[in-house]
């Protein structure tokens, strides 16, 4: 059976096509101004990559913040449900799935079958999601993809006090003025968000294995900081931003 999952994220749209639980193809596109049009394009490209036509797909399941406007979808699944299914698919040992995306941070507790047991979510405050790191990289004048590697070169831990993205921007600027090395500032930024995500996850009780997914899971600086804050090792899949779409493609028929 062939199914597709479309994850309508705030920043990116991710599409995955599965055949008999094997990944056939993946596609990603910026959500942009017209999320629906971007999703149509991403979906059709992913189909072409798999060498399939629309009619070959038995079921199309949408998830993500924009799932209501997803094109072609005939079913939907919550983001937490998709995290649990996708996480358990990639790592059957996963019991806690932490998903940090552009506008949301979530943690999901699941069983060995990828069924969601409990979850906790941080939304609508940019300080608890990827947007925080993006804004800080602008204040630091360092490219977003360089933030992680830079953070690993830090020599000193400097504290960040601001719990708000807007106030943290000013704090970063004054750290720069105080001649704090950019590597140390970068680590402070990742430690700050990791601290929030770790405390949020503690609400579920941290059960291993813990896996980290979502766009921010590509940031090595964040991974290191989160390991430190949680005090456990983390499993991070390749292409961590596709886990939601994989989970959606695995969703059972309603």
């Amino acid at each position, binding site marked *: 059976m062939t199914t597709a999952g479309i994850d309508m994220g705030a920043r990116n749209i991710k599409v995955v096509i599965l055949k008999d639980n094997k990944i056939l193809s993946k596609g990603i596109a910026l959500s942009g101004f017209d999320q629906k049009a971007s999703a149509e394009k991403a979906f059709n490209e992913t189909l072409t990559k798999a060498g399939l036509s629309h009619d070959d797909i038995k079921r199309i399941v949408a998830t993500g913040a924009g799932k209501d406007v997803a094109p072609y979808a005939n079913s939907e699944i919550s983001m937490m449900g998709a995290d649990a299914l996708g996480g358990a698919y990639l790592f059957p040992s996963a019991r806690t799935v932490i998903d940090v995306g552009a506008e949301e941070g979530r943690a999901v507790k699941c069983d060995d079958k990828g069924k969601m047991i409990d979850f906790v979510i941080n939304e609508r*405050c940019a300080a608890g999601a990827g947007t925080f790191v993006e804004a800080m990289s602008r204040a630091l004048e360092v490219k977003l993809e360089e933030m992680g590697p830079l953070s690993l070169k830090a020599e000193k831990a400097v504290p960040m006090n601001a719990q708000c*993205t807007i106030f943290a921007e000013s704090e970063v600027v004054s750290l720069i003025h105080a001649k704090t090395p950019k590597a140390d500032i970068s680590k402070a930024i990742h430690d700050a968000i990791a601290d929030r995500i770790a405390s949020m996850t503690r609400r579920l009780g941290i059960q291993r294995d813990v896996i980290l997914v979502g766009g921010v899971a590509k940031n090595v600086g964040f991974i290191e900081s989160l390991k430190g804050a949680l005090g456990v090792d983390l499993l991070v899949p390749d292409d961590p931003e596709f886990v939601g779409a994989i989970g959606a493609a695995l969703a059972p028929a309603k």
Partner: protein
Amino acid sequence: MSKEFWRWPEYRRTVPGKDWKNAEVVTAGVDIGSVSSKAVIMTDGELYAYSIMRTGSSSPDSAQKAMDRALEETGMKLDDIKYTVGTGYGRVNVPFANRAITEIACHARGANYIWGPKVRTVLDMGGQDCKAIHCDERGKVTAFLMNDKCAAGTGRGMEVFADLLSVPIEEVGPMSLSVDKEPEPVSSTCVVFAKSEAVGLLRKGWPKNMVLAAYCSAMANRVSELLEKIKVEKEFVITGGIAKNIGVVKRLENIIGFKALPIQEKFDPMTAGSIGAALFAKALYERSAKST
């Protein structure tokens, strides 16, 4: 970086027409916050001089600097002050203070002095924080709330919008009232997400005044929710930078159903904590004088 409209100037002031040498007791309050340091000198429990300075990297130095500045032009020396209370996050690092008192107690006491017992509700919105205080008919503070975590609902949040739309901050209020029809408020509270929302509205062709109206009304909603927590009653005063933004004040008055008292600039609201500290200093001094 863009121009920061919310920056406040360092300054000092002496209340005219007073001679401290005639006073029986001179006391001081020093409030070391994370952003600003304030020193207040009071003669017989009345405001005499004060200074507002930026906090540097060392609390003791900041305290000294603020005190020196307050003393300037008065002919007074530190020794002439009988009792000093430190407050704020750096309160234990005021080298010349006789003791420290938490800022909440000092703010409550200072608010009471500044606005008098008639006032039941005080909303003080500065650049980086928002405080709401409720007092009873005996002038005792019954509820205190301070929000300095989130930029939404502070002057800084408004500043981000003024920057985004390149509108001088003092024009935001009047401009936001120049709309034919009140738009829906911006739905995100978070300043970061509200900003993206505003960019979307501008792309849709909304004029600037509509976007500002949508943000001012979101801010008024938000502030009214904070006020609800402490109970809002007449008389009601608004202080701090936002008091000058009629776009927010008008909308807030509409929500709560009555008007704020007109702005009085007799006292700088930033000094409320240090005024409270100086008043406590007087009471403590008198008590210790009595017991010896």
